[in-house]
């Protein structure tokens, strides 16, 4: 067994709304090894967003252990949790979530700046990453001048620039047309082929088919965990 990047052990997450407790995750265990490409698949309300928040160290479990990059979230305060996110996780959001009034290169440089890397070096690395993803000629464009597919590639560059242990993508094709969506999925496959660990959250079975492993989730529990070693084309 390879090195574990994500290790969820019997994780429960409940939300308190007034007197009513809603169970989003009802005791889930999941291990992701370095180099895996995992899709977490489920309909809305299945608990997959909660799982993404927990794996992304954005939230804490009600009970159970969330261990990311060998650190147990339970043992970390807010500052240490932020540092773990910064170092270990690269986020790709559904709505791209590029920072407003900020050029592509500055968007990608921002995580490095938060790590305390100097602005010159941060911009250099950001430009390099954008060029790798084919956006070398769009460095100074802000999000209003980029197409959806370009924005998502900027977002992916931003996720990769810190060289994280894990790329966590939440419905990365959800706001894209078919062609751009396919291009983004191919980017993920290439990244995985380079050895990058990817966890992708989706409700779309076609998108999930691009992953080597699919974890089906329903009503806060893992329903099925299937691995396919051969690559399946998207759609």
């Amino acid at each position, binding site marked *: 067994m390879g090195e574990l990047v994500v290790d969820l052990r019997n994780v429960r997450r409940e939300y308190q709304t007034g007197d009513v407790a809603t169970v989003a995750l009802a005791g889930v265990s999941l291990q992701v090894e370095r180099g895996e490409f995992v899709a977490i698949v489920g309909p809305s309300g299945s608990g997959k967003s909660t799982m993404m*928040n927990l794996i992304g160290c*954005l939230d804490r479990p009600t009970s159970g252990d969330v261990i990311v990059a060998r650190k147990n979230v339970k043992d970390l305060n807010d500052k240490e949790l*932020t540092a773990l996110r*910064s170092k270990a996780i690269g986020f790709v959001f559904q709505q791209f979530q590029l920072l407003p009034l900020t050029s592509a290169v500055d968007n990608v440089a*921002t995580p490095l700046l938060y790590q305390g890397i100097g*602005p010159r070096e941060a911009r250099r690395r950001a430009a390099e990453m954008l060029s790798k993803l084919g956006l070398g000629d769009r460095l100074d464009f802000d999000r209003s001048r980029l197409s959806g597919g370009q924005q998502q590639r900027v977002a992916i560059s931003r996720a990769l620039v810190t060289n994280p242990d894990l790329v966590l993508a939440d419905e990365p094709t959800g706001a894209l047309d078919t062609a751009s969506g396919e291009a983004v999925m191919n980017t993920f496959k290439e990244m995985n082929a380079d050895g990058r660990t990817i966890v992708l959250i989706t409700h779309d079975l076609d998108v999930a088919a691009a992953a080597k492993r699919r974890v089906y989730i329903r009503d806060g529990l893992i329903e099925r965990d299937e691995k396919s070693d051969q690559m399946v084309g998207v759609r």
Partner: protein
Amino acid sequence: MTPWLILRMALQRIRASKMRSALTMLGIIIGVTSVVALISVGQGAQQGIDESLADLGANQISVTATTPDGLQDSDAANIAALPNVLRVSSEVRSNGSASFEGNETSLGLIGVSPGYEAIATPTVASGRFLPAAPGAQSARVAVLSAVAADELGMRFDNLGDEFRINGVAFQFIGVLDDADGFGGGGNVYITQTAARSLFAKSPYVSVINVQATAKETVDSVEQGVESYLRAEKGFVDDDDAEFIIFNQAALQDAVNTVTGTLSLLITGIAGISLVVGGIGIMNIMLVSVRERTREIGVRRAIGATQGQILVQFLMEAVVLSLMGGFIGLVIGELASFGLSRLGDWDFFIDPATVTLALGFSAFVGIVFGVWPARTAAKLQPVDALRFE
């Protein structure tokens, strides 16, 4: 994140919504403008008062008789012999009428002793002051205040002409400069000898002016004069005293205290508008934090600490406030410049005012920026990302 980058982010944000930023700054701009202008007016007024009082002489006291026979020439001579007294002059005063070429007006008549010019240092706008030579004291010559000359219809080219005081002919030899704070009323100055032939009874005098050797000795001279007069006039109760001692330095101190308190009060009232401006900034920053909740969530997700979010929003508030403060300072100084031309006092940019204006606006930015910035920093990343 270097401070420079955070500053650049704040400036970008302010530039992106110019109208909103300008309106947010308006309160600070108005506050700082009024504080700066009012401080400047206060300083100008102070300067004017100081100059007027300095003209009258900060090292002087005057003793004014409250009865016609309260003071005499001998008192002036005796006071002149007291320690620390540099010189003494005396005045006799009355009201009378003057006429020139059919114009008739009532004026204050002031008969001054030869030493008067040296103590009071009147500024002569045209012509000359009364003669000081002992042999020339009976000359029928007169110096008019500008107001008096104006009322009589006399101009500079009437110098040397004759006019009448209480029906007696006098030669018009000079006009005083009222703008310099001297002889503000309609007064006519003649020699004491002439005055005594006209209206005053010898040896009585109305006012004795005393000049001390220095500003520092004024108070001891005042005490000396008072104890001399007590002994000489033999009164027990202050109510029995037939004179009033008037200390220019004490007056100046009193006036300074009053003007100082007044400008502080007015500036304080203007300062309230700064606080209101600060509340405006806080309000807009709170709105901004709410509007940018998702951005905050994203920033937290990609590695911003609570401290970095706090600093980002605090910087925005402080930059807004400081920009407002700077604009207000510029407008305030321009207004002060205009007012100084109107009020005829010296314009200068006081470093203390600049420091106060910028320092206070930065302070307002911090105080009213902290709460919104803390609100932003305390957002849970997961809630912020989910926020619609």
